[in-house]
């Protein structure tokens, strides 16, 4: 089943790319932005039909490779 993981930078970590995107959007006329933070999205098709088991597997992947927990948080979403 498909499980998604969203990786975002922690609050205190500088995100220069997010800042540049913010400035660009602002320059395009989107004046109502508080902040932009850029992250990563993974869609992983796991060979496992039990959703809770599949989530545990992806959580392990996030901790061991997909996210660097010094600077990033992850959130797991069941997509199917």
């Amino acid at each position, binding site marked *: 089943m498909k499980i998604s993981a969203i990786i975002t930078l922690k609050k205190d*970590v*500088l995100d*220069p*790319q997010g800042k*540049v995107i913010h400035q660009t959007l602002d320059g395009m006329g989107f004046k109502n932005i508080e902040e932009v933070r850029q992250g990563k999205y993974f869609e992983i098709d796991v060979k496992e039909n039990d959703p809770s088991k599949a989530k545990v597997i992806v959580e392990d992947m996030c901790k061991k*490779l*997909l996210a*660097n927990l*010094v*600077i990033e948080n992850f959130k797991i979403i069941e997509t199917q």
Partner: protein
Amino acid sequence: MKSSVITFPGSNCDRDMDVALKKFGFNNQMVWHNDNELPKGDLVILPGGFSYGDYLRCGSVASKSKIMKSVIDFANSGGLVMGICNGFQILVETGLVPGVLLRNKYLEFICKNVFVKIDNKDNPYFKNLDKEVLELHIAHNEGNYFCTNDQLKEIEDNNQIAIYYSNEKGQTYEKDNPNGSTKNIAGIFNKRKNVLGMMPHPERMIDKYLSGEDGSLFFKNLIKNIK
């Protein structure tokens, strides 16, 4: 003195490092990332470059490659492991040294000579070096050293900061910080000081006609310390 330089797909400073090590008397061997066993030796180098195309996060994929298991074991048993540039990024991803390297503050790839102030000489890398400030070369996009406040306190309490970006006199002002690194940090040790990660490339400063000689001083001193 035997050394090994690990080549990952995308490493591009591995041969420069090989030339530098051999020039100063190391019996160096190139080791492929997919090998299982590290040859017996005194020093392991993770070279600069763009291992695995910097996919996911710089160094993250290389840190899980086959050879890294033996490199981690070697480091944990007290062996000397040095990571330069991308090698430093690989080291932080293994967790052998604390922290992480973020994208440079102003989103530019930086390629220039810098001065670094040596903070700590109580280790095999800088012991007896008779200079406090070295001129070395940096070339990176992700060299902005970051760690949590707790980690920073621990690093400082254990004297784990190896080198700072500085001016020629060794003063560490904000304007001498090329990439936004926390506290101008350019290189750090693990707790035992047998593992060193740093962004500057000493192997690019080994010829007075082409670049400079401060890298030569570093390697000459290193081999003396290991003997």
